[in-house]
């Protein structure tokens, strides 16, 4: 509902802006006519605007100084953005005595920090825990969120509206409000210190359900009807007809859920006490606290937690960015 609301206001806006510019158009006709000569001159305001405009429509950028400066500043900003990551990686390859210099490239690179950190095997365990939990949660979300989204979108049944509103309303409840009851629940049922205990709160999300509902709107009912006439049952229609048509949305949802669970902190911190069941973020906190002032080891731990996502990002960059945009805008 939030998304439709936003979309609505967008449409209303377009209308307003439309009339606005139209009015300005008529008012400014004289000015434009008077400036017609100016369009030819390279440095008139209109000329500048025109060149900027051309840049936005993917034609080759005009080679003027402003554009160079713009590019340079953006580039410098971008480099500053990745500096923390760069320094983390650089320090993880430094000996302690080199920690204090600002060089990005270590004078004597070493992998001793990595061998030391990986030696006791806890990082492998935490990595495996995070991987298992994030994967199972992602699969569960992709299945259930799309099933519920599909049902709410394509079926007509009594109680539909109530279910819709009920699931929607859970979007407003912050996780932090639920951690105490979840903790009490886990204590009662013996879910503390177990994978299930870490996973159960995130197995379905209202966000994912609405994302998928939005995308199932784009699947024509005729397709489903045709499949129904061919004798497929509803489960088969959902799985073999509707699901393949929303693959990009499923990918977007999967990326979002995986990332969210991979970096989740507060709930795994609360529900686990046994180091063997820590997820990577919780393990990293514990590890860093243990190391106290040995920053090169802390940076190595941080690098170990970060490198896998960096590799995945470098490989699937475009895909991930598109997914994030889709989830962000439609969700």
């Amino acid at each position: 509902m939030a998304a439709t609301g936003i979309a609505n206001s967008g449409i209303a806006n377009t209308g307003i802006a439309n009339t606005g510019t139209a009015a300005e158009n008529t008012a400014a006709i004289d000015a434009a006519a008077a400036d017609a000569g100016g369009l030819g001159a390279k440095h008139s305001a209109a000329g500048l605007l025109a060149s900027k405009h051309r840049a936005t429509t993917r034609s080759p950028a005009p080679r003027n100084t402003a554009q160079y400066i713009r590019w340079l500043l953006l580039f410098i900003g971008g480099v500053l953005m990745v500096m923390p990551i760069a320094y983390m990686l650089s320090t993880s390859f430094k000996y302690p005595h080199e920690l204090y210099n600002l060089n990005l490239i270590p004078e004597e690179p070493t992998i001793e920090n990595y061998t030391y950190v990986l030696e006791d095997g806890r990082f492998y365990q935490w990595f495996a825990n995070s991987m298992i939990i994030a994967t199972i949660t992602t699969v569960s979300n992709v299945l259930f969120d799309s099933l519920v989204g599909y049902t709410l979108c394509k079926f007509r049944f009594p109680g539909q509206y109530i279910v819709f509103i009920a699931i929607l309303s859970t979007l407003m409840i912050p996780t932090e409000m639920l951690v105490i009851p979840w903790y009490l629940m886990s204590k009662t049922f013996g879910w503390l210190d177990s994978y299930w205990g870490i996973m159960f709160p995130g197995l379905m999300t209202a966000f994912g359900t609405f994302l998928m509902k939005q995308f199932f709107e784009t699947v024509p009912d005729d397709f489903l009807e045709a499949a129904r006439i061919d004798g497929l049952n509803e489960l088969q229609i959902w799985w073999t007809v509707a699901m393949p048509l929303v693959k990009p949305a499923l990918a977007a949802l999967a990326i979002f859920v995986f990332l969210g669970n991979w970096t989740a902190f507060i709930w795994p911190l609360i529900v686990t006490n046994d180091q063997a069941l820590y997820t990577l973020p919780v393990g990293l906190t514990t590890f860093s606290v243990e190391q106290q002032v040995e920053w090169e080891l802390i940076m190595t731990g941080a690098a170990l937690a970060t490198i896998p996502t960096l590799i995945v990002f470098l490989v699937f960059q475009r895909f991930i960015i598109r997914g994030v945009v889709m989830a962000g805008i439609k969700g």
Partner: protein
Amino acid sequence: MKQYRQLSIAHKQIVWAWAFLAVPVVFYVWIRFYPTANAIVLSFQDWNLLGSRSWAGFANYQKLMNDPVFWIVFKNTFVYLLLGTPISLLVSFVVAYHLDKVRFMHGFIRALYFLPFLTSTVAMAWVWRWFYQPVPIGLFNNFLASIGIAQIAFLNSTTNALPAILAPAVWAGLGFQVIIFMAGLRSIPQTFYEAARIDGVSWWTTLVEITLPLLKPTIVFLVVFSSIGFLRIFDHVFNMTTNNPGGPLNSTKPLVLMIYDTAFNGYDMGYAAAQTVVLFAVLLVVSLLQLRILRAR
């Protein structure tokens, strides 16, 4: 099965719909609604996890209102919001606005800005914590020393610690906001810009009269989304102040950290539940206010 075959298509649909929804409905009731109710009920009770639960009426809320720490925490939470949201939106808009006009190595620069969004919060909190250490360890102070500026106490100062913790939070979210802003900018029809160009309108007028109004849905989304994020800040604070969570002197403690402390260090479950109810109310009121103000304009 025989009975099922006799049903009309509409009735079959009802059966299927509820069959599909059975497990999710149980999940939402059990894992979302019941705990919500439980949190609210608990906020009116007194319980330390060991003894029995007893009714406390509004005592927890009264205690909260009279708790000086709560008011410090309340203020901190809003400082995170009031600094974090405007700064991150302004910076990300400026970046997105210009990046949208750049073609050369566009994807590469975009990736540079987006990369921090994918990092683990905990890992980056520790990286920034190292940056903030005093000479001779911390990167920032070493850098300041190398250009001859006196060192700054970042995390050890009651005034600087909060902005210092906010910085990595803003940094990590920037990439997401840039990407969303760029998608919003792309969706503005070029015809408006063409009209503006023909009219010879200045770039500033174009920005204020065309780009920003048409970007309003995106702005509303990002304001609400990032505000919720800053009001719920926890990971950064917890990891950057582990020796004294929320310190120095509670100057960086946000509401979520107070909840965590009360519940899982103090085991005062009723009191913590009352704090979560306050958090819920704050989030609700802030989001609704923002939606109302931003949409009305």
